[in-house]
């Protein structure tokens, strides 16, 4: 009896120890008492999956092009309840077109409620962006950083395009700097979360990313590294990104 009591106390202590740790963790790794959004990101062109390595796309400026690399950070997710309450998430997600695993992630620990809006950013916020000393998807092994001027490459689109003389030229878009941190806000018909998993698709139309009404001409901007003197291009990309994103839900 005494022995069992000792065990019980021991186990209780352990459990208390565990609980404390769980409370700390729950900021980023929440409990099963809440719901979640299971997010899939899809890169598209005309509602069809975007294919890397195919010189079959034409942007809205009329430039034929292909991409071999398409990677970008999505971060600072925030969801809005219909009464205006918001919930923020700590995710920094690197979406890499070549890596299916990277295109799925979870916005976890969603409190029960009715939601009608999501906000997120393309890129990395200015506080996180002032150091490369960061974990997980922000690890340097992901190859999304500059060292000559500390900061993350928010979006990499690399490939080639056919220039005005008909020649194939390299297309290198490395978008970054705090000015390029672009908010995406999407409203949607109310969805109720009650401890369930809700599938959400975030769709990026690649052509729209290069501009719809004010398209970027690749003859003018083709090798871009977000140097301080590339403000015009950075501004254009930041304006083009929000309309390029849309949202669908699956049951």
């Amino acid at each position, binding site marked *: 009896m005494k022995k069992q009591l000792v065990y019980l106390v021991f186990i209780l202590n352990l459990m208390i120890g565990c609980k404390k740790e769980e409370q700390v963790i729950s900021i980023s790794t929440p409990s099963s008492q809440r719901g979640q959004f299971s997010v899939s990101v899809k890169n598209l062109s005309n509602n069809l999956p975007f294919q890397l390595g195919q010189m079959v796309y034409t942007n809205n400026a009329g430039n034929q092009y292909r991409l071999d690399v398409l990677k970008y950070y999505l971060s600072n997710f925030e969801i809005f309840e219909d009464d205006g309450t918001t919930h923020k998430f700590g995710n920094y997600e690197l979406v890499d077109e070549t890596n299916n695993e990277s295109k799925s992630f979870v916005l976890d620990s969603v409190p029960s409620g009715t939601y009608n809006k999501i906000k997120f950013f393309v890129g990395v916020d200015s506080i996180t962006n002032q150091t490369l000393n960061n974990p997980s998807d922000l690890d340097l092994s992901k190859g999304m950083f500059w060292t000559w*001027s500390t900061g993350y490459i928010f979006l990499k689109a690399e490939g080639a395009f056919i220039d005005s003389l008909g020649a194939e030229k390299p297309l290198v878009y490395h978008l970054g700097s705090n000015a390029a941190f672009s908010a995406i806000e999407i409203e949607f018909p109310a969805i109720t979360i009650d401890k369930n998993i809700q599938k959400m698709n975030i769709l990026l139309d690649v052509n729209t990313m290069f501009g719809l009404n004010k398209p970027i001409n690749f003859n003018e901007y083709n090798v871009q590294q977000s140097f301080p003197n590339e403000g015009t291009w950075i501004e254009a990309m930041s304006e083009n990104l929000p309309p390029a994103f849309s949202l669908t839900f699956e049951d």
Partner: protein
Amino acid sequence: MKGGAFFLITLLILNGCKKEEVPDTSATATPYNFITPSNLPAVVIPQNNPMTLEGIELGRKLFYDPILSGNNTLSCGSCHNQENGFTDNNRQFSFGINGEVGVRNAMPLFNLVYDSHFFWDGGASDLESQVAGPITNPIEMNQDIGELLKELNAHPIYPTLFKKAFGSLPITSNMILKAIAQFERTIISSNSKFDQFMRNEVAFTEAETRGMNLYNDMQKGDCNHCHSLGGTFTDYDFKNTGLDSIYTDQGRYNITGLQSDIGKFKTPSLRNIAVTAPYMHDGRFTTLMQCVEHYNTNFHYTQNLDPVLAISVKGRLNENEVADIVAFLNTLTDVEFLNNPQFKKP
């Protein structure tokens, strides 16, 4: 049997705990007590990288290990030699792993704990981020970080050392940055002849005393304006010192894009200046005499020229006064720092 069940439950709970375990350095690593020398300002250690004995020792090992370079031939220490105040053996430009040559002079490494911008143009906004620069630069150590992590994680010794320092595995890139930055923050220089003179432990020669007075004299050397006498011997600012009429390397402008930053470079500390030749961001001067003569007579009236220099009379120092200032600069050499065994290859 009942005891067995309890034991099993206990084990399960223990396992549950283990999976949820948050890397907690403080639990395993020993906090490092940073003792600020009395003649240097108070230090602020960044909260995202607390210093530990294990982290510092690991950083020191990494600093001197060529494993950090693409073909395992160069370490940080290859171009940052302690005897030269951690500059590159009096070379103007350093060689990369494939023999390429850089465009700027390797910077000295000491009292970095006080700095908030690194590289000659201040492009790196903290010491951790700076570390990633030379390691990945194609014309320097040319390392692929993914490859480096594979090498380190498969290494017979490193995983144990990283676990001790940071409490978790696998090794990630930010652990490398943190460890090296921790080691670099311990590299302090504060005991030059000048410091001993200030503590009344040694006497200055007449030339040294005259030099110090000229250093401070606003009508003469006026070095004090940017290289503040005592403490760190720098204002940590970026200045255009009229090295050229037109700058090919535009310095700080490359980072900020501000026209007013064209031709501006970091004010380096003048501590240990006698052993860190050659001088300026591009190592164009080989002697201290040339440096003083530049500020005395040879500077160019260029766009963004530092306003203090712009109103300084050319030729205000005579030959003897230039020599006196150089004599004073030679008192800033810290022999204890240059030989400190704690900074040497472990």
